[in-house]
């Protein structure tokens, strides 16, 4: 039975929800075994694309396991995503384009837009549930406060 567009959308929305809740193990389960995760953007200063995060499963797992030990930005993120486009290529993969707005709320309760960007996802639809095989969070925003350890 082929995987519907809705299932792909729900996968992408779930990835936002799990990251907001910092349920990292469940978050990693949404990916294929050898996925690639990147945060990238275009820098007009050096007139080129650049990567600000580049991790495979082992590296992301190591990061997320260590996050509690790091000295962290206080407050919380809330990711609002809308899947704009799903394009199938062949039976096994689909590409999804998702617009994402990330809101940041301080412990005192002040909310601001932290960053906006787009998920360029390659989705593995060969199994019975869809999995993210490749995610590139292409940021529009390059001034992201003091920064964070977390994937976007």
């Amino acid at each position, binding site marked *: 039975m082929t995987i519907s567009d809705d299932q792909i959308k729900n996968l992408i929305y779930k990835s936002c929800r799990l990251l907001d809740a910092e349920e990292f193990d469940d978050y990693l389960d949404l990916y294929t075994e050898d996925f690639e995760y990147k945060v990238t953007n275009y820098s007009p200063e050096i007139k080129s694309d650049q990567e600000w995060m580049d991790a495979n499963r082992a590296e992301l797992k190591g990061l997320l396991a260590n996050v509690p030990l790091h*000295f962290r930005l*206080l407050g919380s993120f809330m990711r609002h995503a809308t899947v704009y486009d799903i394009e199938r290529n062949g039976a096994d993969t689909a590409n999804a384009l998702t617009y994402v707005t990330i809101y940041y709320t301080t*412990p*005192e*309760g002040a909310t601001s837009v932290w960053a906006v960007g787009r998920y360029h996802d390659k989705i593995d639809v060969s199994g019975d549930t869809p999995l993210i095989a490749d995610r590139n969070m292409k940021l529009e925003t390059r001034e992201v406060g003091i920064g964070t350890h977390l994937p976007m």
Partner: protein
Amino acid sequence: MPRTAEEFLSPPSVPEDCYVSSSVYTDPDLYAEEEEKLLRRTWKFVCHVSEVPNIGDYRTHDWTGVPLVTVRSPDKKVRTFVNSCSHRGSRVVRYPAGNMKHMTCFFHLWEYDLYGNCTYQTRDEGYEAHGPTKEQAGLREVRTDTFCGLVFMNFDGNAAPLREYIGETATAFESIFGENDFEIFHLNRTHMKGNWKAWFLTNCDFYHEWGHQVNRSTNLTSPDYHDRPWRLNHAQGHGYTARKLDNEPFVVQYKNYKGWKNRDGLVLRGLQPGELVLTDLFPNTSVFMRTTCVRINHSTPYGPDHTVMEERGLGIKGESEADRRQRAKEFTQVWGPYSRNGAEDVAFVEESHRCQEFGANKYDVISRNEPIGDGLQRPQSDAYVRLFYDKWGDYMGRPANNPKNLMTAAE
């Protein structure tokens, strides 16, 4: 007849203690002086004891810009420290509230215990040559005291004790706080574009109840509304309104407001159904009791024109979920960001500031006088506001109606 520029710019024709120069709300020099002469000389409300019940429970806050942390030490005493590491001055405790066994400065991992002693300097052999030693690197402790479960602090180590500072005004709420085991159930903080005194005085100027639809319908319709005298504490600058002259409670008719019911159930011990008791403690804390719930409201200034109002709601510890829900419902009818009065009060402050800021309105008239007999005044007189500015003048050494001799100097 509209006023001419000349009339508009000269003081209102009322006695000198019956108007205030708007510069008290806008002038940066006066604000800096206030921090020094007033805000760091008086007792400042921090939180309710139910926010720091166990050892290690803490609340971070700040006053006159200085970051502070209030924590219950292992000896169960509530202490306040300047929240800044003795090494390179970084803020140590960063979260609004929580529990901690000790304080770790994350910058170089120095440690402090809950008494403010420095207990660990990373690689301390580095300090053998020049020091300072751990004993010389404790946190700066700020005087802290509690009354009726309300935690206060005072930068001035020589000020009179808290109990003495509150004085006779305690009679307004001491017994009620004694009879009820209160705990906090509501907190909101509102940033507003206006002066901290303007906010505090909305809690003290009952004449502005005319501006609230709720108060017009549930309070001002009762003829005996005006029979409650102001009880002024001239020594310390506090005041309260409670029982009428005949010692009967003033009963608020909540049912006059469409969709509300009178408050006959869940009445706090020591109060009568519908009873209203309002207390104002100089310089910035109000304790309001509306039969079933208690509101503690105070303002923290961040500049002459930027104030954060903090609002707390107290209910009964251990009450049933249903009772707590009903109490919270009644609290948020009148108070809180989505209540009937919350936004109105903030608007009063911001709209007044909007004019004072650019000198559009030079004076603030506080001349209402409504005697009720044997020297007392009715609630809608400006008696307390005049007392507030009299006290303000004492601390500042400046008359509130002409603090920088604006009138005599070429304006």
